[in-house]
């Protein structure tokens, strides 16, 4: 009888975290809006570190403003910084949306960001007249000392729909809350929606902003805006959709709000990684839209099944895999490696969420393998665990690269951040096609590490 063994952190100190603070999630969400700019109400590091992180992972610029709090703000409050910051951003960048993101500092100081935003709105009205109304200023509370970046992402999506969604004519579209995933993933979701003859509203869509073409003739005007992102009209229209699917279990509040306020039914699921999770995603689309599953999509599924039939048993079966990272991706990934006949013997997430462990129990039953769940843990815990409990493969972000090197375990990069390899942000791990990509990646890694030494096995 397979079982799940939950191992929680037994020390206070955190060593090599697998999570970060709320503001990052909110910045990520706002960067996915067309002409949307986050302004972080905090110290300069609060934006600089995140911009550094996004640049390193996506190899793209990310514009995130900051109110640059200093000692005087710590004493007297950050009112003048935030009011001036919003105005400067609005006047120079001409954005559609400004997401005002709080931090540990501004929450501790007790700044009334809603009041300050109103003041800034008033000032802009004086300077810009009617045009000021075109700029939406949306406060997003993201205290850094509460939960993690996922909570920040959830809070941002919720604030956006609460502030913008307006009931109007039904639009026959489907809202998708994608979670903290890559441009390639979002493009795959769009592809699936297209095959299901469905139009989506992504809350929000970082696919173009974080994977933008280099075409100087298109972007010669100052300021540079990346193309794409969810438009303000789409955000407003999210109240009129057929339904909302959040493929991030940890960011369902926005979906729930839309359901409560505008009767948009919602479904909150694990991301479509692998066969069964993608099947579920497709069923959800079908349910909301009434559209049947297209032959083309079924063929894609068939191609993934075909390559699993061809390769999984021969090369992958029974191999032990350890997975670490964000909770939604690790859940999806654990199920997929199980589908490949591998054993997810250890799954670690830095973020705590009540549904994580029950999900792991389901996967354990399904795969028949015991899973050690490192719950709310860090990468040091992964390292110590792996020294005692070796595995064949490690799946996770680049922060585990030195552990993998030291232990001689091949690391398959997935999640955020990946900075020591290129192109991962462009590929999808979602959908049937993402499954094919992942499976090839996993299989080729196994072949290189475990088959090359006996290379004759690779002759056919």
């Amino acid at each position, binding site marked *: 009888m397979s079982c799940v063994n939950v191992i929680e952190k037994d*020390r*206070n*100190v*955190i*060593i*090599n*975290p697998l*999570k*970060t*603070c709320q503001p*990052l999630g909110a910045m990520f969400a706002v960067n996915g809006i067309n002409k949307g700019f986050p*302004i972080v109400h*905090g*110290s*300069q*590091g*609060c934006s*600089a*570190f995140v911009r*550094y*992180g996004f*640049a*390193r992972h996506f190899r793209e*610029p990310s*514009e995130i*403003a900051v*109110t*640059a*709090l*200093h*000692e005087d*703000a*710590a004493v007297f409050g950050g009112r003048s910084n*935030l009011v*001036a*910051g919003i105005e*400067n*951003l609005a006047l120079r*960048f001409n954005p559609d949306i400004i997401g005002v993101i709080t*931090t*540990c*500092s501004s929450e*501790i*100081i007790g700044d009334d960001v809603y009041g300050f935003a109103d003041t800034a709105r008033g000032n802009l009205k004086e300077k810009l007249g009617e045009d000021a109304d075109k700029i939406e200023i949306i406060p997003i509370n993201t*205290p*850094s*000392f*509460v939960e*993690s970046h996922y909570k920040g992402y959830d809070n941002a999506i919720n604030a956006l729909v609460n502030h913008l969604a307006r009931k109007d004519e039904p639009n026959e579209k489907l809202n998708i809350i994608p979670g903290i995933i890559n441009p390639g993933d979002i493009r795959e979701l769009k592809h699936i929606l297209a095959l299901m003859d469905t139009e989506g509203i992504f809350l929000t869509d970082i696919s173009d902003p974080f994977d933008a073409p*280099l*075409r*100087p*003739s298109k972007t*010669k005007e*100052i*300021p*540079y805006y*990346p193309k794409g992102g969810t438009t303000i009209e789409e955000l407003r229209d999210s109240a009129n959709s057929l339904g909302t699917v959040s493929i991030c279990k940890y960011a369902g509040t926005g979906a729930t709000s839309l359901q409560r306020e505008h009767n948009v039914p919602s479904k909150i699921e694990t991301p479509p990684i692998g066969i069964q999770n993608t099947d579920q995603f497709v069923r959800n689309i079908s349910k909301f839209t009434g559209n049947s599953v297209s032959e083309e999509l079924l063929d894609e599924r068939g191609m993934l099944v075909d390559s699993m039939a061809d390769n999984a048993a021969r090369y992958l079966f029974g191999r032990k895999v350890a997975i670490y990272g964000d909770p939604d991706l690790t859940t999806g990934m654990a199920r997929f490696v199980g589908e490949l006949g591998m054993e997810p013997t250890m799954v670690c997430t830095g973020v705590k969420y009540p549904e994580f462990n029950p999900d792991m129990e389901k996967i354990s039953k399904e795969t028949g393998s015991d899973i050690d769940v490192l719950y709310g843990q860090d990468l040091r815990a992964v390292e110590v665990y792996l020294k005692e409990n070796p595995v064949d493969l490690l799946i996770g972000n680049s*922060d585990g690269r*030195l552990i993998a090197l030291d232990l001689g375990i091949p690391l398959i990069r997935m999640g955020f951040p990946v900075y020591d390899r290129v192109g991962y942000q462009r590929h999808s791990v979602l959908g049937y096609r993402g499954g094919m990509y992942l499976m090839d990646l996993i299989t080729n890694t196994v072949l290189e590490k475990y088959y090359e030494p006996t290379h004759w096995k690779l002759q056919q």
Partner: protein
Amino acid sequence: MPYKLLEVDKKIPQRKNHVYVKHCSDPEEEIPDCNTKTVPGSMSERGCAFAGVKGVITGAIKDVIHVVHSPIGCTSYGYGTKRYPTTPDMPNGEKFPIDNFNLKYILGTDLQESDVVFGGMKKLKKSLIEAHKEFPEATAIYTYSTCTTGLIGDDLDAVAKEVSEELGIEVVAFNAPGFCGPSQSKGHHVGNMTLFENLVGTKEPLQTTPYDVNLIGEYNIDGDLWIIKKYLEEMGINLLSKFTGDCCHDEICWMHRAKLSLVRCQRSATYIADLIKEKYDVPYIKVDFFSTKYCAENLRTIGKYFGLEEAAEKVIESRMEKVGPELEFYKSKLQGKRVFIFSGGPKSYHLSKPLEDELGMETVAVASQFEHKDGYEKMKGRVKEGTLIVDDPNSLEFEEIIQVYKPDLILAGVKEKYLAHKLGVPCLLIHSYENGPYIGFEGFVNLAKDMYSNIYSPVWNMLEFEEEPTEIEENIEIKEDSSKQETKPENTGELA
């Protein structure tokens, strides 16, 4: 007027005093305003004081544990951001058991709401004790205050003292919460002061020689320090202490025993050289090892100080023999290329003139995130008339500078690199390099090579789709040259 209000700054006219165009007739004291608070919402590239202390100063030390007293973000962001490699070599000849310990781990207190309400000192104490238990091999523990702990008033010094007494290991508290000072520069300062006050003079070196130096402000970015170390050792000079590249905690404790301090990064570390001079009478000289000319000049100065002139000449000669011809090649390729240098601090003046004198390039603009007055004076002194000098540029200014000054290459950081690319201009990482090291003779060749490959990457000739194919000439470099020259404006500083 030499101060210039850029088009993009019309709405924030206070930026005018930070943007300066050099004219030879200007009064000498005229430089951009600097080391002042950033304009909120301006999209500045600056970081915070915590980044300055942990990211720059202490993160390079190989045998200490870093415990960040913060909500989770600061700890996560403090991990693995700088390229500061270390060897396991310890001063007593032993090896530190964990390779690249400084790059491999970061620890933190992961403060929660209840800690913010009731104070985080108890959790810090527990965390420090656990840190020691987890890594007993570490020589010392450094702990860092952040915005949260600065605001709630946690007394890190008290906790450090208590834990230090309890564990019998040195625990040092760095009080540079993110909001203190206008930029990361404040963190450098706090780092210097803290290390000086707590460490320097507390230990004696295992042995001394008449040729002992402190190499200060060299952090071993991508191996820079190892290059300088080799030159100095070949001259017969002993690196008694490094501050802080590839260095051990104990080395800082005996910095007072050096005969001379060499200050490499003069923005982040002149503080400690001054303090050591004042208290222990160790003189210092400011050194510059970027480019062959500065490197040779400075090695000669050091040689002269110690009476090792011949040894210095030997080092210079042996290196120049090899790099001379290579640099000639790169000079022929880089001749006339317009460069915009946007460094964190001093590289803007370290590199501006060598790129012109030794590689034939034209420095059209220099900028810095956090330089102070002395740095801008040097910057101004080393650029020619008409060059733009900008303090703390923001991303719109960055775009305007690209549009107006039309650089062929930008040297900047990772936050700027991809924006430059989107505007069609190659950009090379200058904070922590691409294929470094960049210092010294060989390093300057690496830099020249990286600049060459960035500018001459064939991609820049195919940016736009053309209805009719253009013949790819055999020598694309010549084609590239002539096409660029046609569109080159004079340095008028007007929007194109």
